[in-house]
């Protein structure tokens, strides 16, 4: 069986173990559906942000609050974490006696560290804004900002918790079928968060810093 014969998108498994292919397909497709409903949620928050961009109520504006250096750093960190998760996926897919589990855990740890670094940088940004008096309670624009960007941050936090849980499960159950499927779904989730971030740095940060 060719490992590259992808039966289903995201189903980047070399073999399925005791879970049947149709069950795995359902599990992955179902997760894609969930991601699409989450995407609609984010899209509406972007739309709300767009309609409230002008609602600064004579308070802090995007130009006064957004820092391009921070945004760039966060972008690079998250993108690299997507790459490191890709390496983890490859470690999981291809068997290598003795080295597979440590390699997988290693790449997952790197992803986790980058994820937490991302959240740290973002939290630092938010603290800076709060010190400036740019709180969500100040204006509609800031409310829209603080709904959209921290929601993404919360998703990253959930992803980090999920990473920790999966790392524990890899140690405890080794790579049984359920662990593999869950790591695949976590991968979809992690990459999806990076896609949302592309939209955030473009629509929120860069748009805010252009004018």
């Amino acid at each position, binding site marked *: 069986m060719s490992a590259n014969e992808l039966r289903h998108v995201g189903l980047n498994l070399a073999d399925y173990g005791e879970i049947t292919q149709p069950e795995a397909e359902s599990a992955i497709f179902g997760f894609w559906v969930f991601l699409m409903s989450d995407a*609609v*949620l984010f899209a509406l928050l972007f739309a709300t942000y767009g309609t*409230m961009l002008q609602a600064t*109520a004579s308070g802090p504006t995007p130009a006064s609050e957004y820092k391009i250096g921070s945004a760039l750093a966060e972008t690079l960190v998250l993108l690299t974490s997507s790459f490191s998760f890709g390496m983890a996926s490859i470690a999981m897919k291809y068997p290598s006696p003795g080295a597979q589990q440590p390699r997988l855990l290693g790449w997952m740890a790197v992803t986790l560290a980058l994820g937490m670094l991302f959240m740290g940088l973002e939290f630092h940004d938010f603290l800076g804004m709060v010190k400036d008096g740019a709180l969500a309670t100040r204006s509609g624009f800031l*409310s829209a900002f603080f709904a959209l960007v921290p929601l993404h941050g919360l998703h990253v936090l959930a992803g980090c918790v999920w990473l920790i849980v999966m790392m524990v499960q890899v140690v405890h159950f080794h790579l049984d079928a359920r662990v593999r499927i869950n790591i695949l779904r976590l991968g979809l989730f992690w990459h999806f968060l990076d896609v949302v971030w592309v939209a955030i740095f473009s629509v929120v940060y860069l748009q805010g810093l252009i004018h």
Partner: protein
Amino acid sequence: MTTAPDPWHLLLGRLDLQSLPFVRAWQNPTASELISAAAAAMVVLAAVAVIVLVTLLGKWRYLWTEWFTSLDHKKIGIMYVILAAVMLTRALVEALLMRAQQAVAVGNAGFIAPDHFAQLFSTHGSIMIFFMAMPILTGIINYVMPLQIGARDVAFPLLNSISLWLTIGAAALMMASLVVGRFSTGGWSGYPPFTELSYSPDVGPDYWIWAVSLGSIGSTLTGLNFAVTIYKKRAPGMTFMRMPLFCWTSLCTAALMIFAMPPLTVATALLALDRYLAFHFFTNDLGGNMMNYANLFWLFGHPEVYILILPAFGVYSEVVATFSTKKLYGYTSLVIATAAIGALSFTVWLHHFFTMGQSADINGFFGIATMIIAIPTGVKIYDWIWTMFLGSIRFTVPMLYSIAFMMTFVIGGMSGIMLAMPPLDFLVHNTLFLVAHFHNMLIPGLLYGMLAGYHYWFPKAFGFRLDERWGKIAFACWVLGFYLAFMPLYVLGVAGVARRTQAFFEPALRPWLIVAGAGALVLLCGLMSLFVQLRVSIRDRRRLAVPVGDPWDGRGLEWAIASPPPEYNFAMIPSIEGRDPFFDGKRQGDSCRRAPARYEDICLPKESATGVVLGLAAAAASFAIVWHIGWLAILGTLIVVGTVIARSFARDIYRIVSAVEVERIDLRWRRALSEARAVPRELETSGLNRGLAEVAR
């Protein structure tokens, strides 16, 4: 203003004695307050009565292992329908109270205070949409769809249970609002700024936000479940174009649930942020914009009404074909119409707020889009009529509902086309004309469809038919009651009478309101008749028994198995060769009921308490947020997160039904099949019908 928090506040948040309607009624015994207290008392007494009854009968273990923790789509479906029936009763009584108040309060204040009246119309709408309509259609799709596609269960049985318990938890919040505190007075749509903290600082809008949010999350997950089931779990040979129409409508409904619930989640979440963290999304000051809410809410709200109607359309397709003894006319056009309705439902939402200040061009665009969406619905009506034409029609209860639907729903459709014209809408927006229109769509459309489905598939689920005579009595009440209750409202609406009005001053309105009140009483008789019918049917279940499983000479796979079906549905998953495989099979040697060559072990999911724990913990956390009980909110949230994580560690989650057991169950059914006498259609509502249809070869 700051005082140190005393222990009571830490424990109970802002709960106090004033939160109880009994205390309020004691202090101020007006008719309105006494009615509130009576309602609260009924909820408490009913809950106590149920608990005592179950304890006395010793049924807790049975309920827990066989029902609450079950992951079987059939049981989950039945529980959804039971929930819907309970909530329907409450909401119908609320409607009666409102109608009674309006009939009485012409030139006087009536007996229901304005604030109480406002809570009534808010709970009536919220319950009917989120806790009656959504659960009943979810329940019927849950039961029937997997059977029709030849599957053993939905794609994600545990998620199914979680969705059910989130809905039950949310309904519990609605019932709690009767006993502790009060409900929102902002209608089922909850528009800010009225529902903002500055105008409604009480717990009402909070109850509304959390009940609706939990329910909507449950529905999104259900939509996900149904969509993946239909995509991935169809029996071999069942292509999309061979699926029954009910499955097509289920698929489109699922797609709408997946994509239309998020706007509601966003709307209520942003309102919650405004209320709890003083954000400025919809406030009057500092950059808030209430139109953002209206836009978000109706982005959800319009597809929602198509979520409500599409399953009913699916039921009609099944029922009309079966009881016209004829193949469904225009299958392809029905599929295209269903998909078109689903897609177009996302393009019309602005017609709910034509009057809010947009330019005429924008109003015009959405008005035209709204009229266009009527076309596929019209196609469906014609297809059903053509199905009946030259068919051999049997006037069973489901068929009666379908015919009443075709005639009555179209009237509502026409009033909808009228409302789709912005200039006309400006005159009747938020009048009783609008109220008449949407009830004209929901009652003959959704409710008759669900009642038809209930009568049609009840024998499959429970092994005996419903009493036909009481079914016809109920039908007569539902139809007469609808016309009496809502046709006067068209007249009143055109005369300019606003909706949600607690008292009137124009004597000319009185006769119309009295007729409408009488109609509501007849509708209540309809509901009561259904309960009587159930009692009579259970009493007479031996006479009404149809164990062989095919009481109506049905067309789809669900009729090819026993009534009630075994836990695993099919001993052997059939292979499909066309539309109506069971019907065609019956006429060609009964191919769908052939015994399997070999019986196999069947793997089923084990029961799980995960759904119950998640649903109830989420409801507890929501209750805690409503009342500012910090410790309970944190605890509830931790339980939710912890349970999800713990469940992911579970490995012993399946059980096996042995091939020997499957064979035993199957042979028992086959014995009944061989011993039963086949009945012709003239005898299908008689006691001779054992569930085997006579087939002219």
